[in-house]
């Protein structure tokens, strides 16, 4: 069975992602921006699939496209669209933007040209078929402590949100 992960699909999804990302910042209407962001996130999930990480792709769809973006849309829909369309969309901080863009661009170019020396060449060692099991053994075995710390951080965030939202508990 020929692998599906051909360069064609990589360029396709990468293009969808880039176009989606550009649309997020150029659309006047915030709802359109959110929809473009969903398209970009779904394309990202496909790229995870191409990297033989189906579990990460599934989680990406459930959490980002299905969960977080719905909440985004929920909040945006409550805001008056007419007023937010008339608001100024771009911040004219050209200097900061230029510095950030050149820094990121330089980093990417550096990685692209010298990447082979920095990163060890790593052949795919895990089979796709037990990707989920691999992730599980990693998270609950080797990286148990960082994983629990991350969960604790999220718990603190939840409690903080409740405390801020509710005056009287």
């Amino acid at each position, binding site marked *: 069975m020929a692998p599906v992960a051909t360069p064609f699909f990589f360029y396709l999804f990468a293009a969808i992602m880039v176009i989606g990302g550009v649309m997020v910042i150029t659309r006047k*209407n915030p*709802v359109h921006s959110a929809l473009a962001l969903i398209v970009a996130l779904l394309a990202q999930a496909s790229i995870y699939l191409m990297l033989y990480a189906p*579990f990460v792709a599934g989680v990406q*769809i459930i959490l980002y496209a299905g969960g977080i973006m*719905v909440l985004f*849309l929920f909040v945006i*829909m409550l805001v008056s669209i007419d007023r937010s369309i008339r608001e100024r969309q771009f911040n004219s901080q050209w200097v900061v933007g230029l510095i950030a863009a050149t820094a990121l661009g330089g980093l990417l170019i550096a990685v692209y040209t010298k990447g082979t020396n920095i990163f060890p060449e790593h052949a795919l060692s895990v089979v796709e078929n037990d990707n*989920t099991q691999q992730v599980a053994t990693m998270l609950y075995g080797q990286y148990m402590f960082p994983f629990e710390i991350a969960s604790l951080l999220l718990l603190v965030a939840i409690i903080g949100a409740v405390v801020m939202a509710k005056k009287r508990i």
Partner: protein
Amino acid sequence: MRAIIQYIQSYLGSDQTPGAAGNMFWALVYIMVVFAGLSVAVIAMNWLERKILAHMQVRLGPMRVGPHGLLQPIADAIKLLLKEDIMPSEADGFVFWMAPFIVVLAAFTVFVVVPFGPTHAITDMNIGILFMLGVSSLSVLGIVMAGWASNSHYPLIGALRSSAQMVSYEVAMGLAVVSAILMTSLNAEGTGTLSMIGIVQAQQAQGEWFIFKFFPLGLIAFFIFAVAMVAETNRAPFDLAEAESELTAGFHTEYSGFRWSLFFLAEYSAMIAVSSIAVTLWLGGWLRPFPNFLSGATWDRAFSLFPGVVFLLFAAMCFYNAVRMPKHPLFRIQTIGLAGFGVVLGLIGLVLFVPAVSLRVQDIFWFSAKIAGFMYLYIWYRGTFPRYRFDQLMQMGWKVLLPLGLGVLILTATVALLQQRIWHP
């Protein structure tokens, strides 16, 4: 030419799904069969829902088009296709146009991993259940888009309600699903699986449906899922998103004709999809009832007669009603049609008695029969329960189902650990 035939034939002997075997041709055939079956099921559900609801309310329901209104769904479909497709002038055109397609895509794509039998699935993914939950959660995006793009008050309120409701119940649903997946890891290797076929095979290997596992923990998890799935599909008594007495039709108020029918199609196929998750996780998927108590060759033989008997019963019902038809020249065509339908059903039933056929088909039969039970439950709920108020809905989701789900998950994990470490070390 010969190469093509060989490619088609090469799959026939294998015991894998076409997706796993990598056979494009049979995968396409399966996709078409599933799609056609799903469309027929939606049409049948449309008729059954109206009939059963009517009988629950001591009415007759559709009686005019065809015998006992059997052709009513087809008449409805033709009406919907011929209707003018209206878009509100202030609507957001592109989003309005996209919304029904997203809902339909999300509702139909999940059937890629639904296991109708050990080999009767389009494909089997390592992340099967995750894929089903993820893709079906995308349908809420379509609903929100539809409600917002209509640029009208009722749809917007409907969309807001529906998104809040679906996001809240997804949490309880996920917890229930996790506690069932945890049960799949109770084997010698100690690793579970997310694949839909693997989950059913785990129940087969343990000789127990997960609804009865660690009684009553499996039952409670199933109950949580059964409540959450009704809320996820926006059906009564959780149909606040389209509460007709408050919001005319909720998020699809402004839709008409073909696009409205897409929403309808998506709603019913989403109902079938979540029921198939419940069947796979807790009710043993394609396994026949009582695999452990009534085991042995004789019982296998007896249960394999079931599909044929059911179809013969349907045929008998058709003949009975054909005889009871009014003896009037105007009803002649209807009577002949009903008797012909009975003959077709009877022939299908007879074919199902052939051992080679029933061996291949009984998985599909049991899976569909279990789903049909859920479909009847949906109609029953709609006929009996009054609609929840929104605060009651939220209270139910966050204060009852979520703590219950967390408790069941922790208890299941504890009992499973005890079982593996202490009772059977």
